[in-house]
Every structure is written in C-alpha cells, then in structure tokens.
C-alpha cells in the first residue's frame, strides 16, 4: 500500500467521526435541506471530471469528461440553489406575523 493511500484512509476515518458529530445535531425540521445540501456537496466530484475533461487526449476521454462535467455541474449548481430556496422559507413566528400585518 502506498503512503498516500494510508493517509487517505486516515482522513476517511476521521471524517466519519466529524460527519456523525456535526450531522447528528441537525434537527428533524431541517432534514430535507440537510439532504439536498449534502447532495450539492457530493457534487464536488465534478472537480475530477474537470481534470479529466481538461487533460483528455482521446475522443473517448473527451466524451466521458464532458458528460461527467455536465452532470456534476448540474448537481452542484442545482443542489445549492434548491437548498437555498428551501431554507429561505424557514421562518420564526415573529416574521410570519409581520407578514400578516403587511397583507
């Protein structure tokens, strides 16, 4: 096994602990935004797609890279925008009542 792989495994295990610690604090009210927000974060694989698309030297690699960039970019941009749209709606009672006065 390479040193790099062992380092990767260390990071993997540590991140599991951090992930569970951080995410177990998210209240159930926010489970849908959590899911769609993390959805956007795993779109980070698009950077791998960019590296491949940018260094491709065969038609096959060009095609694979291109499709992967399109999917990945849709995942990233769509994921963050839709999560933002959802979270914008979560309001406390005070805000809801000022709105009622306006109406």
């Amino acid at each position, binding site marked *: 096994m*390479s040193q790099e*792989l062992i380092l*990767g495994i260390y*990071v*993997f295990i540590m991140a*599991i602990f951090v*992930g*569970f610690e*951080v*995410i*177990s604090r998210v*209240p*159930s*009210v926010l*489970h*849908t*935004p*959590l*899911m*769609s*927000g993390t*959805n*956007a*974060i*795993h*779109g*980070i*694989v*698009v*950077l*791998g*797609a*960019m*590296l*491949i698309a*940018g260094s491709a030297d*065969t038609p*096959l690699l060009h095609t*694979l890279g*291109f*499709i*992967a960039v399109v999917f*990945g970019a*849709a*995942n*990233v*941009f*769509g*994921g*963050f*925008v*839709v999560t*933002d749209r*959802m*979270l914008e709606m*979560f*309001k*406390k*009672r005070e805000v*809801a009542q000022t709105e009622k006065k306006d109406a």
Partner: protein
Amino acid sequence: MLDFRGSVIAVSYIVAAVLFIFGLKRLSSPATARSGNRVAAVGMALALAATLLDAQIVSYWTIALGTLIGAVMGIYFARTVQMTAMPQMVALFNGMGGATAALVSVAEFLRLTRAGESIGVGEATSIVLGTAIGAISFTGSIIAFGKLQEILPGKPLQFPLQRLINALILLAVLSLGIVVVAGSDATPLWGLFAAALILGAMFVLPIGGGDMPVVISILNSLTGLAAALTGFVLHNQMLVVAGVLVGASGTLLTLLMSTAMNRSVANVLFGAFGAASSDAAAASTAVGRTVRQTTPEDTAIALAYARSVVIVPGYGLAVAEAQHTVRELATDLEKRGVSVKYAIHPVAGRMPGHMNVLLAEANVPYDQLLEMDQVNGEFPQTDVVLVVGANDVVNPAARDDPSSPIYGMPILDVDRARNIIVLKRSMGHGFAGIDNALFYHEKTRMLFGDARQSLTQVGQALKTA
C-alpha cells in the same frame, strides 16, 4: 515538494474542506441554516476555482461548455421545481452526482492505463468500488425519481426469481471487479459499469413508494461514498472529506428513518413492503363496523369552538398541494383564539423532513411544528385533531395489535385526543395496505374528498360559524 501553484491548490482544498464542515454545522438551527448552505457553496466555488489552476489541465473548452450546460440545467430545475416535487428533485441531483463519480472513476482508469502508469491495488480497488457504487446510485436514483414522479408505479415491482437474478448480477459485479484489480484491461471495467447500472435499477424497483424516505437516504449516502472513493483515486483528501460527510449524513438519516418505521434497513430493501399485505388486509376489513361521516360545516364548528387543535399532515397533503389552504385555515382559527399546532411524524411524506419543507413554504413558523415525542403527551388535552392525508402513521394498530404488519412502529397517538377528524379521498388503504382502526373509532369523523377542496370548504364555513 509542491511548487507554488500546487501549494495554492492544496491550501484552497484544505480551506474548502473546513468550509464544508462549518457550513453543515450551521445547519443545526433553522436560524443559521441558510448561511450554512452559502458557506458550503463558497467552499465549493473555492475548490473548483483552485482545480482550474491544476497543471494537468491543458484545454478549458470542454470544461467551460460542460459547466455552462450543467449549471443552466441545474439552476433552471432548482428554481422552477414545485416544493411538492422536492423528493424527486433530490433523487435526480443525487443520481447525477453518482453518475459523475462513476464516469470519473472509469475515465481515470483509462487515462492511467493509456499513460502506461502502473495502477496500485489500492487505486484499482478504489476505481472498481467508485465505478460500481456511483453507477448503482445513478440508476437507483433514476428509478426512485420515476416512482416519485409517478412515471413508474409506486407499488413494489416484483417478478419471479428476482432475488436470484439480483444476486447473480451482484456476483458479476464483484468478479469483474477482481478481474480489473488483477489485470489492467479496460474491458472488464466497462462490463462492471454496465452490470452495476442494471443492479441499481433492480435494487430500487421492488421497493414501494412509502419506503422512499429510506431509499433516498441510502442513495444519498452511496453517492457520498462514491465521491470519497474518487478522492482515493485522485489522491485528493478534500474529496474524501466531502464524500464522507455526505455518506455520514445519508447513513444517519437512513437509520433514523428505519427506526421511525420500526423496521430494519434490510427489511425495507428486500421486504417489498406493501405488495403482499394488501389482499390480506382487504379481506380483514371488518364487516359491520361503521364509519361516521361529517360535513365541512360541522368540521368548521368543531374547530371554531375548540381550544386546541393539532393538525397531522401526511403524503396526501403533498398530493393535494393543500399546504397553503391548511395554513390559511390555521391562521383563521388562531384569530379566533384557538391554539393550533402541527404534529410531524418522521416518515410522513416521501423523504426525511418532507412535511416540514411543505409547511415552511406555506409560511408556517417552524416553532409550530412539533415532533412525535413532543406532541404525543399533548393529545389527551387536545380538543380536535385534524388528520390531513396521513394514514399508517396514525394507525393505532401499530401500538395495540401484535398481528398487524406495522406493529411496533412508533405512531402519533391521535386516538387519545377528544375528537378526530380525518380528511381522506376515500376509504382506500394507506401505503402499507392495512386497514386503519382509527377510521372506525367512535370519536372519529371522516370528511371525504380532495384535501384542498375540503379545507377550502371548511374555511368558508368557518367564516359564518
């Protein structure tokens, strides 16, 4: 040692990983959640900008065009999707991430073998797993999308020898994986990719619509895992961190959802729940039990003269798109001095937190939304419970009848309230295909019809009540 450019990229990745964690941390309260999502987006922008500096990239055309098309598509869907269609939107984006991870793994293998570089066992294993898991997540999510969008039937799809066939495909994926790791030929990797695509579809087809909260969570965690594996392939630790964070979130939600249904994850995946039980349940519908119907006018009076009302929303609320109507009714009741709360079961709807998002869209303040544990003690002091399109999550059989298929599932104890009014389209069964004793309870009144129409009528009757 890294050169200057390499160092800039490396530091940007570290900062991005920290921003992801920090962003998720801010999701622990609705007040900070929106900024948390933005913090994570900044991390993403930084990571992607840094990647563009990579010396490996020689041409930017494919990247620019691909990003443009993907971004326009993604943002268009994200801005136009109805809040009621959110579960399928999440499934679709999840599938795209899975596809990206699988394609990156395959392409990286091709690139390395072409360059004549030797691929270590660790890298090869990561490539195999990344391809397989990404592909399973892709087609699995597409099938889930189809079921949620009602392009495919929501009922479990079963056929003879299903488990045997699935086991054989899994075996094919595993053995092709071993061949890829042992050799350096791309052909078995393509075979593995294809087999994993089929496996993903086959694995979600036999799962019923009501089990989607669990399925979406699992697929979410699979895509995260695939992304983390891609990090091993590309020697990119930030990718590992980001992927694992998603994997952890998906796993946690999977466990929460299956606990909320009192079923093991394996039972959800392989049980084909809701397929077989419907015949038995139809036969057991007791003869001679009476259903008491009510009218919108009587409902309005019952609500208007109550001191406390609890509204229990279910998937039927989403189907009827009645979230705004229910909120208007609640506001009118509050003006009359009635205390109104909402009781949210963890698996109500088609994904974790589905009801919360719908009610938030209708401007219901989130402190009015109560979780199961918070609200169950309050039902005996509640004058009227209004059940809007929920069924299995309020079925007392889950608590009282050991022979019921859903026995042991934690439920909202609405039958302990003083009066219960159930809004329902017809006497059809819920997702589990089980008869609901609540509907025959002497305290229960049924208001049949489309939930939105019924609520509108109740709202009008309330004005004269």
